[in-house]
């Protein structure tokens, strides 16, 4: 650690190395965050004239709004399925591309491709596939399930969103699992094999426990991404049909910017933040306790 002899010298170093990034952080993140917190406690309607402190009124209004709960409920279902399916698929893909066959690097490259492209564009691509391609296949081959446009039916529309999100995220989480699998000490696997463990036992008793750090990361990332999803939601279903796919991020956006409910909108945004932070920290806490040392 470096020490400075004078306060002045310390300040100089701080200004040289830290002033601009800190300023950007404070202006771009901290000020909106704190003003958001303050504004959520007032009857703010976009102008500061006649602004009044109303305590937790906006939060009460947000909690009483049935639209908020409907959207939250959808989001929980969506998050649950996306998190489970993404990680199951990602783990499967990771096991495949580390099993040592010719072309496994090509597969890694291919599986990761959806992650290069923004959610808005992916949503449009799948919109075309659901409305044109699947319907065409369904009608030509007379498959009832495909003949109907899934995006126009409330029961299937949420599933299109889940499907596209799993497809989009699996490749990224796969790479985290690949990194985890490659980090496992080979001698441990060999030792367990000599001791007569079947490949299934090796997966359950050796690989999975050693992969807990990777699960901590992938679960954190999938939970976070799923709770925050907006781009794909917007371009694939726009929240429809009949609000059957309006996830929480879109609900907050619409409430604030379309319906101009700025105060309750901001309160909802903070509730979302609180829920995400709680879920993410709980998950990290639980998995951290399950981590084992490989020695």
């Amino acid at each position, binding site marked *: 650690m470096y020490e400075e002899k004078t306060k002045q010298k310390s300040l100089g170093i701080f200004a040289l190395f830290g002033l*601009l990034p800190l300023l950007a952080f404070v202006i771009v993140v901290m000020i909106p965050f704190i003003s958001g917190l303050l504004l959520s406690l007032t009857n703010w309607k976009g102008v500061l004239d006649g602004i009044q402190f109303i305590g937790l009124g906006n939060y009460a209004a947000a909690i009483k709004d049935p639209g908020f709960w409907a959207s939250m409920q959808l989001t929980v279902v969506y998050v649950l399925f996306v998190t489970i399916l993404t990680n199951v698929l990602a783990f499967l893909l990771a096991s*495949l591309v580390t099993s040592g*066959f010719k072309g496994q690097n090509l597969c890694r490259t291919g599986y990761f*491709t959806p992650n*290069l492209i923004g959610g808005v564009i992916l949503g449009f691509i799948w919109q075309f596939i659901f409305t044109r391609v699947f319907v065409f296949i369904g009608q030509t081959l007379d498959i009832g399930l495909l003949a109907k446009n899934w995006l126009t039916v409330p029961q299937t529309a949420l599933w299109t969103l889940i499907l596209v999100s799993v*497809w989009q995220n699996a490749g990224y989480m796969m790479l985290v699992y690949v990194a*985890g699998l490659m980090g496992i000490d080979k001698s441990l696997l060999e030792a367990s094999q000599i001791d007569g463990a079947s490949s299934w036992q090796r997966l359950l008793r050796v690989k999975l426990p050693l992969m807990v750090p990777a699960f901590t990361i992938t679960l954190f990332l999938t939970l976070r991404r799923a709770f925050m999803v907006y781009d794909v939601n917007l371009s694939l279903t726009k929240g429809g049909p009949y609000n059957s796919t309006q996830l929480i991020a879109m609900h907050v956006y619409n409430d604030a910017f379309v319906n101009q409910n700025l105060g309750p909108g901001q309160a909802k*945004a*903070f509730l979302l933040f609180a829920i995400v932070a709680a879920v993410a920290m709980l998950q990290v806490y639980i998995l951290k306790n399950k981590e084992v040392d490989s020695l």
Partner: protein
Amino acid sequence: MSGRKRTVNIASLLKLSLALFFLVMMIFPFGLVLINAFKSRMEIIQSPLALPGSWSFDNFITAWKTMSYHVVLGNTLYITALSQIVLIVFSAMFAYLLVRWNWKINKFIFFMLVCAMIIPFQSLMIPFVSIFGKLGMMNSRTAMVFFYLGFGMPMTTFMYHGFMKGISKEMEEAAMIDGCSYFSCFWRMVFPNLKSITVTILIINILWIWNDFLLPSLVLIKENTRTIPLSTFYFFGEYTAEFGLAMAALIMSVLPVIVIYLFLQKHIIAGVMDGAIK
């Protein structure tokens, strides 16, 4: 012996076909968009699966003109490139400050940065639009660079911080005895050692900023300031019924990233994996 060999072969055949199946699942949407980008509206309605009758670039030319693709591409390049430079330069320097000086305030700042990483953009956006709208920072591409510095700095600094802790400072101290200042010491001795983490950070940040939608949709309202995701969004909304045109626009919007990926795939995959375990 031969029985065992056969089960091994069947198992590896199964594995290979499974891998191939998933490869097709991951790639076919892009292939479908590509073949339909060359077709007319009628051809697509007749069959979205058939190859185009003729490989005409008309859809691409029309889509390019309508969305002023060169302007949009320029905006995206400008914002992404400048944001990368400021994020790398300032976050690396900031991480150096946080790692090498043992001040109490540094610990507090580091804690704040970690906390800030879990704040979703949705909880900032309402006051954000109000504040920066009043300050007249809307429709400014340069303001976007500043915003990305603010939003990206916590994560970038965090990654540099973790990496820099592992670098010994003996070399630096030797150079300092010879009269090297902290600043030049950082750029000459420390920064060159950060190459691998810098590549990882660049990949993650480029993918984020190039594809970002919500923030630019709130800031870049004027048509001539839009980025690729924004412009694709408006274009697609307007020409949903013109499938061919819409597909051409989608291809043009993904092409820059896909081309770069084809050349740098090994580095990108390795970079993301490095970032994953850190």
